[in-house]
């Protein structure tokens, strides 16, 4: 039994891929990896991700994000401390979400909906980066970012345990 899925026009090449490649390249430039190795990491990770997303079946398609994340984590692991590298790492994380929202097998999204996919992560990164870059350069910024991360982890743990918190029943009425 097969299923026909119907929707609107799909992406052929959305803005997500260029955004992801550019931010990954920028992270390569600021990281401590030799430039060739960095470029190789980006090229292999992104290419594998794109190929898996185009070719894999619906179930395996989610795995396309794995090579991209591996490449970015490898780059981030050897990135020096600083406002610009930290910001670029955050932007790279957002770029992954933007790239995910450009799924070629899914209908093309309206700009407002597409924007909403990455707006909340972007706000989180912006707050964390601002607290790092604008507060005095002591251990505090690291603590702020860590605190935000911890809060996010707690929030997601609660939501995983209680998905009904975001899936409320309609209020009964007479």
């Amino acid at each position, binding site marked *: *039994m*097969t*299923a*026909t*899925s*119907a*929707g609107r026009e799909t992406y052929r090449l959305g803005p997500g891929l260029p955004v992801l490649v550019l931010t990954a390249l920028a992270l390569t430039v600021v990281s401590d990896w030799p430039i060739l190795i960095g470029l190789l990491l980006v090229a292999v990770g992104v290419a594998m991700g794109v190929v898996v997303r185009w070719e894999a079946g619906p*179930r395996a398609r*989610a795995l396309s*994000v*794995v090579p991209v*994340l591996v490449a970015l*984590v490898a780059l*981030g*692991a050897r*990135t020096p*401390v600083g406002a610009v590298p*930290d*910001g*670029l*790492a*955050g932007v790279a*994380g*957002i770029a*992954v*979400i933007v790239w*995910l*929202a450009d*799924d070629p097998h*899914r209908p093309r*999204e309206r700009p407002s*909906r*597409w924007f*909403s*996919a*990455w707006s*909340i*992560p*972007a706000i*989180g*990164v912006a707050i*964390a*980066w601002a607290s790092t870059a604008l507060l005095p350069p002591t251990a505090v*910024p*690291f603590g702020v*970012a*860590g605190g*935000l*991360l911890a809060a*996010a*982890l707690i*929030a*997601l743990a609660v*939501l*995983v345990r209680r*998905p009904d918190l*975001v*899936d409320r*029943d*309609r209020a009964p009425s007479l």
Partner: protein
Amino acid sequence: MRPARSPPSSFSWGPLSYLLWGAGAIALILGILTTTPALLFLGLPLLLAPVGAALLGPVGPMSASFEGRVVGSGREVDISGTLALDTAVDPNELEVEVRVPPGLAPRRRTRLERAPGAIRISLAWEAPNPLVAPVPAPEVFWRDPAGLVEREVAVVSEPLYVERYPPELIRIGAARLERTIALPGETRSRRIGTSGEFFGIRDAAPSEPLRRINWVASARAGRWLANEYLVERTGDVILLVDARPTVLGPSTDAELFSLSVAAAYGIAESFLREKARVGLGVYGEFLHAVPLGGGRTQRVRLRRALLASRVGTIAGPAERCAVAARRFFPPGVSTILISTLADDDAGHLVPFLRRRGYPVTVLSPSPVPSESSRAGTSESDLADRIARLVRRQRIARMWRDAPVLDWEDRWNLGGLVELLRRPERQRRLA
């Protein structure tokens, strides 16, 4: 009939959410262990994205109702309908998936027209072979743009069915049936039908045979009108579907059984339209029967029984079927046995039924077209010829007990109609 309802609206995290959380947690741990803030910044959006997607989506259960109809003729199956959304959600944010029932193939891509509060769905399928199949309700989902979370919309739908069988079966209801009523001779019924004493005129259906059209009245009225008659006869017919497994294997058995179901339904519908009583028996290991009955309710009963029936895993002995049939049906009723006759055991059913008093006519869906299309080798022609010869010989043997129609052209059952409309042949056999 009760409308079909999909499971209640549900929220679920997509597999991508778990992947992002895992990657974010790894980045967090590595960042803390190696005191690298860049990893923390990298992990933060990965952890927040699923939560953000869940918060941005519509809150609360979503529901919709689907009303559609099946049109088209022959192999073409066109389904059009409207999905009315009961929830305030933008239709552009919803994805619609329609499962294609087995035996049907999509002819073109599903067309959707999104309007405020509703989605119009247009499906075009093709039926390579006759079949009777329910059309599943469309599945409707809200998904965030990145595919991180999913909410299913509960869809309430009136049941729709695809009913495709050879067009000749429309005429089969006019065949003479063995009389089973207590009084012999012609008995006038008060029911309206297509033969007997003239009763009146009504609007003609698109599928009306030309001989029923009242041409003079149609010319006067400017629209097609057909004659109606007082039915003069009351016949009973039993449809017996052989659902025993054969040497052909499960997939071919299932394919041929689907054909048998379509034929049985087509025959039943035609006889029911002629006000005859129709009974059904599906014989696998045991006989599952729907007793003789008439009218629309019987049509629904028969359809439900046929759709619920499957090829059995164990073949029951032929005599058991004949013995069990006597518990449900009176002897002497015209019986149409639908069996592949793929092996000699299948043929044993006919003499047992005759001995129990059922005048049998056999409709046998031929396995040869199904088998030959799968071979595809250079020797397939020879194999086909041998298979046809073996089958012809088996059917020739069967003719000693009952008239048999070898059903090879899937969309043509004119032979069966002719066979049933020539009672002299059946009398000769009796």
